């Protein structure tokens, strides 16, 4: 198992993501945005930060990078992809995930530890080796200014019906005004997952929670099952 963590000009959480990958017991390496080849990589992380300065719209320019072209092909072939924060925005802009991330309702950058509810419908469990973790609660920090998940009402209904809501903010903890408290979504195949909170910052007991590791493990398992 080998992770690839994309690195754009303006990424800032790629090294924490790489450290988190290492804690899942797998290897990993950084993939510079100009690389077009994901040879030898089994799972991809699109990390947080401010790719290309977030000019125009968060994630709008990163989606045209050679590395993202490679990620689109990788995802289409069923490869597991995890987008965190800016990475989630990039995946939405690239059309790999539904919806969009808008300015926080409060107009303020939010930075705090919060509770996430993980929703793992049965069809996204791997046949073996990964324990079902339906509706468990994870303690993970969030830090973003543009994290308000939005999609048209009919798309939200479809996402819920198909089990594509991957993470929700626990009641009363929605930090940005996201529709239906949605913190993260997955694609129809379940191999592409994006969320605004930062699981890579919750992997060491020293900082209070190791729940973030489960996010990485769930994505890796979804890829194995695909």
């Amino acid at each position, binding site marked *: 198992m080998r992770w690839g963590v994309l690195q754009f000009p303006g990424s800032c959480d790629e090294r924490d993501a790489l450290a988190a990958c290492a804690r899942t017991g797998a290897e990993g390496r950084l993939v510079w945005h100009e690389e077009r080849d994901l040879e030898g990589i089994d799972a991809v992380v699109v990390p947080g930060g401010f790719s290309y300065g977030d000019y125009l719209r968060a994630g709008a320019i990163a989606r045209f990078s050679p590395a993202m072209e490679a990620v689109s092909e990788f995802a289409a072939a069923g490869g597991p992809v995890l987008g965190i924060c800016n990475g989630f925005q990039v995946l939405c802009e690239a059309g790999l995930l539904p919806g*969009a991330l808008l300015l*926080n309702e409060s107009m303020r950058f939010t930075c705090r530890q919060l509770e996430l509810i993980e929703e793992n419908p049965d069809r996204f469990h791997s046949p073996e080796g990964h324990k079902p973790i339906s509706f468990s609660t994870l303690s993970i920090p969030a830090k973003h200014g543009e994290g308000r998940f*939005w999609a048209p009402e009919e798309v939200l209904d479809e996402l819920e019906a198909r089990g594509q809501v991957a993470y929700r903010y626990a009641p009363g903890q929605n930090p940005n005004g996201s529709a239906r408290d949605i913190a993260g979504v997955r694609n129809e195949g379940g191999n592409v997952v994006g969320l605004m909170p930062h699981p890579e910052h919750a992997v060491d007991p020293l900082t209070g929670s190791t729940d973030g590791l489960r996010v990485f493990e769930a994505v890796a398992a979804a890829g194995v099952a695909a």
Partner: protein
Amino acid sequence: MPRARVLIRPKEGILDPQGKAVERALPALGFEGIEHVHVGRMVELDVEDPARLGELCEKLLANPLIEDYEIEQLDGAA
């Protein structure tokens, strides 16, 4: 090369916190009777083939899911 201006704004019905913040600031400055403030962006560019501007807006300048755009040809061209 023909010059064009693209105006991009949040779609009707999508909460626009920037517009709301501006709107809330106005009464304190003595500006009464102003509502429905929306903040968008403007892109000006020179373009060889203005027929391709729509495609450019759909793919990059705007996110059609959440934003509307208007293309305005400058230089008095149609």
